[in-house]
C-alpha cells in the first residue's frame, strides 16, 4: 500500500505538523509554537508530545533503560504468543522435543546436529530459559533443525515455564509454583561446565 486516505484527529494532524516543522529544521520550541497556532485545540497534547520527544532524545543508554527494554520484549513475547496462539498449536502441543521427534530426531541426535548441550535443549523444551534472552540467530538454528518457524518457537518459549511438554497438556496453565527460568547464555555455560559442549560451540551459541 503506497497511499492511505485517512481522516486524522486534531492530535494526529498536530503531531504531523510538529514533526514536519522539526524535520524542516525548526527548533522544537518554534515547531511547538507553530503547531499550536495551527491546532490550538491540541495545545495540551502538543506540549506533552514535544516534551516527550525531547525526553526520549535526552536519555542516553543506561543499565536501567536496558532493563526496561528487556521487559518490553518479554511482555511483547507474551502478548504476541497469545495473539498468534491459534496457529502455533502444533508447536504448543508438541514442544521442541516433540517437533524434533516428528523430524526423526532424538534428543541426542538433535544435540549433536546443533552442537548444543542436551541440557539446554531440555530446558528450552520445558521453557526453563527466559525467551527474551535467546538470541534470534540461536532461535533460527533451532527452528530450522526441527522444521518450525522461529516465531512459533519464540511463542512457545514465551509461555510460562512448565513440566515437560508431553506431561503438561494445557501449556497455557501456570504451575502453582513456577520453576525459575535462567538466561540462555547461563544455560550454555552450565552445559559447557558439565562437558556437554566444547568451548567453540559454547562461544558460537552465546554470540
Amino acid at each position: 500500500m503506497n497511499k492511505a486516505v485517512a481522516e486524522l484527529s486534531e492530535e494526529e494532524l498536530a503531531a504531523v505538523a510538529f514533526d514536519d516543522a522539526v524535520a524542516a529544521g525548526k527548533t522544537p520550541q518554534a515547531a511547538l509554537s507553530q503547531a499550536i497556532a495551527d491546532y490550538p485545540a491540541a495545545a495540551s497534547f502538543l506540549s506533552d508530545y514535544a516534551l516527550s520527544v525531547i525526553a526520549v532524545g535526552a536519555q542516553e543508554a543506561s543499565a536501567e533503560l536496558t532493563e526496561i527494554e528487556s521487559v518490553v520484549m518479554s511482555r511483547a513475547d507474551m502478548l504476541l504468543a497469545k495473539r498468534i496462539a491459534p496457529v502455533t498449536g502444533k508447536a504448543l502441543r508438541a514442544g521442541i522435543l516433540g517437533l524434533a521427534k516428528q523430524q526423526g530426531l532424538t534428543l541426542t541426535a538433535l544435540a549433536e546436529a546443533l552442537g548444543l548441550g542436551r541440557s539446554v535443549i531440555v530446558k528450552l523444551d520445558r521453557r526453563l530459559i527466559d525467551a527474551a534472552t535467546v538470541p534470534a540467530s540461536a532461535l533460527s538454528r533451532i527452528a530450522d533443525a526441527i522444521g518450525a518457524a522461529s516465531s512459533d518457537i519464540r511463542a512457545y518459549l514465551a509461555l510460562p515455564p512448565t513440566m515437560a511438554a508431553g506431561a503438561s497438556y494445557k501449556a497455557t496453565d501456570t504451575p502453582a509454583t513456577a520453576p525459575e527460568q535462567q538466561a540462555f547464555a547461563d544455560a550454555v555455560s552450565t552445559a559447557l561446565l558439565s562437558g556437554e559442549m566444547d568451548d567453540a560451540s559454547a562461544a558460537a551459541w552465546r554470540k
Partner: protein
Amino acid sequence: MNSATEHVEPDAIEYAAEPRVAAEIARLSGLPSRRLLAALGASDENVQEETLVHFLRACHAAGDSAASGEIARIITGRIAGSLARLARAWRLSAPRDLMEDVIDEVLTDVYEQLFDSSPKFAFWEVRFWVCFNRRAINVMRRRRGELDQVAADEEFDEDSEELHMESVEPSRLRFDEPMGRALLADALGHLPQEVRTAFMLKHWSGYVEESSDSGETSIATLMGVSGRTVRNYLTRATRDLAAWREGTGDE
C-alpha cells in the same frame, strides 16, 4: 515530509508513503516468507518501520500469522528503546507492576492497530512514529494523570486562593542546551498535566497568561481556565522545579 500530503476533500487527506518505503515494498514483495523475514530483520537492511507494517498486514491477511507475529516482534524491537525512555521520563517505570501494566497497555494498543488493515489505521504505513508516539504518549499522560489527579484536584480548584511564589527566571533553566533539556524533561515528569501544559505554553511558546484583547491567544484561552488558575499553575511549576533542582523534590 510536507510534500507527502495532498488535499483530496475537506475532511479527508490522501497520504503517500515516502519514496524509500515504496521502493522497499516493491523490492521485497514476492519473496518467500523465510527470505522476507530474513530481509526485514537484517540490521544492515534497516528497513523502514512503515515497510514493516505493510508486510505485517500482508502476511496477516494471507493467514501467515507466524510471519506476521515475527514481524510484530521486529517492530517491537524498534520501539523498545523509545517506549523505555517514555516510561522513564513519565516516571512510570517503577514499581515493576506499574511498568509492566503500562507497557502491556501500550503494546496491546499498538498491536491491535498494527494487525488491523482497515482504513482508519492506514496511517501507520505512512507515518509510523507519529502513530506510535501519539498512542504511547496518550497512555503515559492518562496513567500519570491518574496518579496525579488527587493532588491536582485539591490544589487547583478555581475557587482556591492565588498562590504567591518568587518567580524563577526562565532563562536560568537553559533548556536550549542538551543538559538543560535533560533536566527539564526529568523535572517536567514531576508536574501534573495542567501545570506542565501551562509551563510549556509560557516558557516554551511564549504565550501570555491572559489577555483582555479577545483577538490575542493566551494560555487561559488555550486551556479554558481563568488567568488566576494559570498563574497558580505557573507558581506550582516554579515551586516544584525549584525543589527538584535543589534535590528536595518528593522523590
